[in-house]
């Protein structure tokens, strides 16, 4: 009964976020469409550059042109999910913390976790990249003649979830700095994620291990698209299991939870002298 109630609550919160998004799309359609188009153009231009290199050289580091396309599709879907679920600064949380806006969240009769999961959901204005990614995925599956079984679909979902968890966990780990230095670390999440995003779209196949390993451990850009794509193509790199991204995501999520809680405790103990209304309640 309690679970059902909670589920209903989550759905209603996602629902109101979707309704607000649709209202904005229908009210300011021209601007909303311009925003969607610019998101798509920006992402397509990033993946196009890699794809054009693959065409020019007949593949990259042992990956065929179509496999590179598959990887670009995966990367675009991840970008699409990021935009669709993280448009309320709930992933770039250093902005909320650094601007002293967490107090708005404390006023709501919902747990912080529930609010953060649901508040950035924009299924209408934020679906451009997700749809583009799905189209690219279908084209590449067709060109690669991949066998799509229920197990493969499950593996795709697990990998996408793991990639998203890694993105969110990494953002929350670096964002925790904003608890201690709100002004200096306000944009740290954007710097950490966007600053290395282009690296995540580059196929690491054929690179030496001393480049691949750090990019699968210290700076997990290889887990954003390259590693999961190869797992889905049936050949996980470096003799690692196809569940490596999931295991990595789990460890990172636990670390993020510990560090973020510590920061949050600091915040409610010391308070924040800073408040900037910018960017809140769009």
């Amino acid at each position, binding site marked *: 009964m309690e679970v059902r109630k909670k589920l209903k609550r989550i759905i209603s919160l996602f629902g*109101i976020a979707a309704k607000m998004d649709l209202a904005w799309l229908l009210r300011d359609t021209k601007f909303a469409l311009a925003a969607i188009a610019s998101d798509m153009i920006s992402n397509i231009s990033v993946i196009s550059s890699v794809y054009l290199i693959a065409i020019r050289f007949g593949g990259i580091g042992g990956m065929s042109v179509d496999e590179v396309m598959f990887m670009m599709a995966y990367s675009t879907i991840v970008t699409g999910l990021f935009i669709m679920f993280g448009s309320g600064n709930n992933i770039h949380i250093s902005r909320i913390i650094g601007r002293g806006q967490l107090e708005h969240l*404390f*006023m709501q009769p919902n747990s912080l976790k529930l609010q953060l999961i649901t508040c950035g959901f924009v299924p209408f204005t934020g679906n451009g990249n997700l749809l583009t990614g799905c189209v690219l995925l279908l084209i590449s599956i067709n060109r690669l003649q991949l066998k799509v079984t229920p197990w493969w679909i499950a593996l795709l979902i697990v990998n996408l979830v793991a990639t998203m968890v890694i993105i969110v966990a990494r953002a929350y780990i670096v964002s925790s700095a904003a608890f201690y230095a709100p002004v200096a670390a306000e944009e740290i999440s954007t710097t950490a994620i966007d600053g290395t995003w282009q690296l995540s779209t580059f196929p690491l196949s054929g690179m030496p291990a001393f480049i691949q390993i750090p990019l699968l451990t210290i700076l997990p850009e290889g887990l954003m698209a390259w590693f999961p794509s190869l797992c889905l193509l049936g050949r996980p790199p470096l003799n690692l299991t196809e569940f490596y991204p999931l295991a990595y995501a789990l460890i990172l999520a636990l670390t993020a939870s510990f560090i973020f809680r510590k920061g949050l405790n600091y915040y409610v103990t010391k*308070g924040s002298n800073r408040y900037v*209304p910018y960017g809140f309640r*769009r």
Partner: protein
Amino acid sequence: MFHTDFAVSFKNVTKTFTQWQRDNTGKGLIKNLIKPEKLTITALDDVTFTIRKGEFVAYAGPNGAGKSTTMKLLSGMLLPDSGNISVLSMSPQKQRTKLMQRLGILFGNRTELWWDHPIIQSFEWKKVVWGIPDEMYRRNLEMVTELLDIGKLLKTFARELSLGQRMKADLAMMLLHSPEVILLDEPTLGLDVVAKRQMIDFLKKINKENGVTIIVTSHDMDDLEEMAERILMISGGKIAFDGSFDDLRSITGNLTRVAVTMEHGFSPQIDNGRLLSSDNGVFEYDIDLAKTPVTVLLNQLSQVNGVRDVEIKKAPIEQVIAGLYKAWDSCDTASHMAQSIS
């Protein structure tokens, strides 16, 4: 165990903050790298008070006295260093989500409205997030729309509202879930006379008719006296006074500021009045209306040639608190002298 009659209970609450101290000299910068200097600020020092259900309490104090800290502690946004806090028999720190269903908070310098949406959209968002039942939402929406006269604003975007309109919309939104206790932090900040009047009347009405407990902070004594029956004065992290406005006046006198605008630029003589400043023909006096009643004052001014305007307002909080300390000092001296004589 908390007393159920109390809307708010603050027991021996202490809250300190640390401030980093830096100077701009080369030596200071190096010292900061090796051993940074910290200053501990006691925002609340062993503060105890209770507020009964249905009370309208003014929580006053000068800037930096600890007013907003108290509000944040009451709403679970901050943790106290020590002491117990209870709001509606719940701990704001441990039962925050449950408490927020019954508590309303409004910070004058912040908005909960969605900037790029019409007001009614923000209200509907609140209905879902707070899980407000349809009937309660409809009833409260009707009430706030009528009492705050915001019918015409409902379809307007929050970003297009004036400050007064925005405050009214924020206040209306805060009341949609029928909160039993309302915390208002500087709600009249920046409002014009008409907007202020409307807000004060509305707050008094919901306090009287719906029995809503209201705690309001401000450093404007006029507004506070207009609204509340009881005043809690805080200064230097301690409760300096807790009682009615009449009791406060009996200690400090009826401290008032009178601004007289003169046509010819010379200062009028006012009995018991102390000239504080003169600027462009406006003369400001300190006067105790307990000693010089307002009728006597106006009578005096009516006999002075060239008076263009007279404005009477309450003395600022800093002066009232100074008056309190002065009164206590003289009490201490008197009792000390009495002890010496005996």
